[in-house]
C-alpha cells in the first residue's frame, strides 16, 4: 500500500491519511463557523463543507514547488498545499498573527512560502496560475501550477484566455474546476453550453478529465494523472470534479434557490466523509479507528481556534502599512 506524503501523519496507511485530511478540512471549516457565530469573522464567509474530497484528493500529488491559486472558497486548498493551519485560521479570524497580518481575511490568503494564493474574484485564479506556469516553464523544472475555480468561474473570459495561452505554449497548468452545480443560485445545467466543463478541453489542446468529486480515491487517482501529464510537459489539463455544496454560497445566504429538503438529501447521499467511511468499513476497517481520527482532528481544531482567539487584533496604527514597499505615494 502506498504511503501518504506531507500533511498526513507520517507512516499511516493512505486510507487513513485520506480520511484524516478530509476530517481535518471539515473540522477547520466547522471551526470557522464557530468563530463566525461568535462574531469573530466579518464579511462573507465561504465554507467548503461537502467538497472535502476534492482538495484532499489533490493534496497527495502536490509538491512544495508546485503552486496553487485558489478561489473565494479556498480553505481546503490552502490546507492541501501545506499552508500552516494556525496562520490560516488566525488570518480568517483577522489576527495580527495571521498569514497576512489580518489584512487579507478569509478570501485573500497569500503564502509565498508554500506558493499558495487565492482571489475573491470568480475565475481570476486562472490567469495568476498561468503566470506561475509560464515561470515554471522558463525555470525548466517540472513544477505545475494549479488554478482552482468553480463551475461559475469556468464561464469567465479569463478562464478561456488562460487556457488559450497555456494550450498554445503547452504550459504546465492544471485548471481544477470544482463543479458544485451552482453558480450562487444558477444551476450549471441552465447556463453551460456543454454537459461538462472537461469536454471544453479539446478547444485548448488540453487534456480533459472528469471525476466524481465526492470520491476521494477517484480524485486522488485522476488528479495524479493530470499532474503527471502537466509535469511531463504535455500541456494543460482541465480536471472537473463534480461535488455538492452543503451550505449556502456564503454564510447568511438565504438559499431561496433550493429547498431545504434538497440540501438534506445532498448531505445524506453525497457526504464524502460518510461515503469514504462506508467504503473503508466494507473493506474491514475498524469504525473505532475512523472515529478516533475524526475526534482527534475535531479536538485539535478546537484547541487551535481557542489559541487563535487569544491572539492580538492588528494595531490600528498599522492600517496604512504595506501599500508600497517604501510607504511612498501616500498623500503628503
Amino acid at each position: 500500500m502506498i504511503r501518504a506524503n506531507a500533511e498526513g501523519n507520517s507512516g499511516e496507511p493512505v486510507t487513513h491519511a485520506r480520511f484524516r485530511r478530509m476530517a481535518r478540512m471539515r473540522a477547520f471549516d466547522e471551526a470557522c463557523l464557530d468563530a463566525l457565530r461568535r462574531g469573530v469573522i466579518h464579511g462573507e464567509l465561504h465554507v467548503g463543507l461537502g467538497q472535502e474530497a476534492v482538495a484532499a484528493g489533490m493534496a497527495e500529488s502536490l509538491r512544495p514547488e508546485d503552486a496553487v491559486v485558489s478561489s473565494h472558497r479556498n480553505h481546503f486548498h490552502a490546507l492541501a498545499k501545506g499552508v500552516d493551519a494556525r496562520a490560516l485560521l488566525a488570518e480568517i479570524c483577522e489576527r495580527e498573527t495571521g498569514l497576512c497580518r489580518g489584512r487579507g481575511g478569509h478570501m485573500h490568503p497569500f503564502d509565498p512560502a508554500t506558493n499558495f494564493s487565492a482571489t475573491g474574484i470568480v475565475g481570476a485564479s486562472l490567469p495568476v496560475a498561468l503566470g506561475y506556469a509560464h515561470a515554471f516553464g522558463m525555470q525548466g523544472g517540472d513544477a505545475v501550477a494549479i488554478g482552482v475555480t468553480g463551475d461559475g468561474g469556468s464561464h469567465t473570459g479569463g478562464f478561456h484566455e488562460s487556457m488559450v495561452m497555456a494550450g498554445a505554449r503547452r504550459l504546465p497548468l492544471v485548471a481544477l474546476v470544482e463543479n458544485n452545480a451552482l453558480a450562487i443560485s444558477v444551476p450549471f445545467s441552465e447556463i453551460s453550453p456543454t454537459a461538462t466543463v472537461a469536454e471544453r478541453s479539446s478547444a485548448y489542446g488540453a487534456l480533459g478529465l472528469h471525476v466524481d468529486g465526492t470520491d476521494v480515491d477517484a480524485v486522488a487517482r485522476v488528479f495524479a494523472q493530470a499532474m503527471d501529464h502537466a509535469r511531463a510537459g504535455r500541456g494543460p489539463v482541465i480536471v472537473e470534479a463534480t461535488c455538492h455544496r452543503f451550505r449556502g454560497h456564503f454564510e447568511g445566504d438565504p438559499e431561496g434557490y433550493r429547498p431545504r429538503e434538497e440540501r438534506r438529501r445532498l448531505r445524506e447521499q453525497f457526504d464524502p466523509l460518510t461515503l469514504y467511511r462506508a467504503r473503508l468499513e466494507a473493506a474491514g476497517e475498524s469504525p473505532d479507528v475512523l472515529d478516533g481520527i475524526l475526534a482527534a482532528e475535531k479536538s485539535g481544531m478546537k484547541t487551535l481556534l481557542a489559541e487563535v482567539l487569544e491572539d492580538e487584533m492588528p494595531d490600528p496604527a498599522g492600517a496604512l502599512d504595506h501599500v508600497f514597499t517604501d510607504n511612498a505615494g501616500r498623500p503628503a
Partner: protein
Amino acid sequence: MNNRLANDRRAMPLPATIAEAIALEMERDPSILCIGEDIGRAGGVFGTTRGLLDRFGRDRVVDAPIAEMAFSGMAVGLAQAGMRPLVEIMFVDFIGVCLEQVYNAAAKIPYMSGGRQRMPIVFKTAGGCIGSAAQHSQCLWGLFAHLPGIKVVAPCNPHDHKGLMAEALRSDDPVVFIEHKDLLLRKGKDFRHHPEVPDEAYTVPMGKAAVVRPGTDVTLATLSLSVEHALEAAETVAAEGISVEVIDLRSIVPLDTDTVARSAASTGRLLVVDEDYLSFGLSAELTLRVIERLGLTGLRQVERLAVPDVPIPAALSLEKAVLPGPDKIAQRLRQMAGGR
C-alpha cells in the same frame, strides 16, 4: 566624436530609447520578461520593444494573443513566482478589459498579504490624443492614481523615459508607465525639452518633479505631452512679459507636492494643466494638496485646464476644442497674469 554621439542621441526616436532602457534592464536582471500584443515580431506598434525578441527569446518576450485578462493576471502569477514582468497594454484605453487584474490583484496583493507578497510589475501603455477618437485617446492616469497600490508615471522626454523605465523595472511595487503617443511618434529633434540621454543605464526616481523652465509670475504644473505644450505657451507669453515656471511632475503616484508648493508659494499663482479628464482627477488633487500646504490665503490664484468631462471626439476641430493645447494654455496664462 562625443558631439556626433550626442547628435545621434538627439535624433534617436523615443521608442528606440525605451527599447534600449528595457534591454539594459533585461540584460542586468534575468527575472525581467515582457508580455504583450505585437511586442515580439513587430517590436511593438510604436517600436518600444524592437529588437528584444531576437535578443532575449520567446520565453522572455512573449507575443501574447489578444487576451489581456490572461496576460495581465499572468504577470501577477509571474511576480509571485519570483519574476519581474513588464506587461504592455497596447493603448491605455484597453485597460477596461483587464482592470480587474491590475487593481484587484496587482495593486492590492502587497497590502492584502500584509507586505509578504511583493508585486514587481510594470504595466506599460500608450495614452494621449493623436486624433484617434474616444477609444484610443485617453490618458487615464487619474484613474490609476485613484486606486491605492499602484505607482503611476508619465514622462515627457527621452531622458526621463529611459531613467523612469529603469526605475520602474527595479521597483518592487506595481507601476503603470504611461507613454504619450504624440511623443512616441515625434522626431527626436522636435522635442523642446530634451536633456541629454546617457548611453549607460541610469534611474530617475519616481515622485521627484523637475522644474523645466524657471519663472516668477505663474507656476504651471503638468506632465507628459503637456510639458511640451506648456513650454511652447510659456515661450509665447514670455514675449509679452509674463514669466512662467513650468514644472514636469513626471509621476502622479507619488506626487511631488513639495516642488509645486514651493514654486507656487513664490509666484502666488498655480495653473495645473492635465490632458486627462477634469473632474475628480489630477488637477483637483494637486491643487488641493498645494492649498493644504500653503493655506487658503497662500495663493492669489488657482486655475486648472483639463479635458472637460467629455469623450475625445474624432473630428480634429472638436478634439482641439476639448484639449488643453498650447493656445489655450497661453490664453489662460494671460488671464492669470492679467489679474495681478
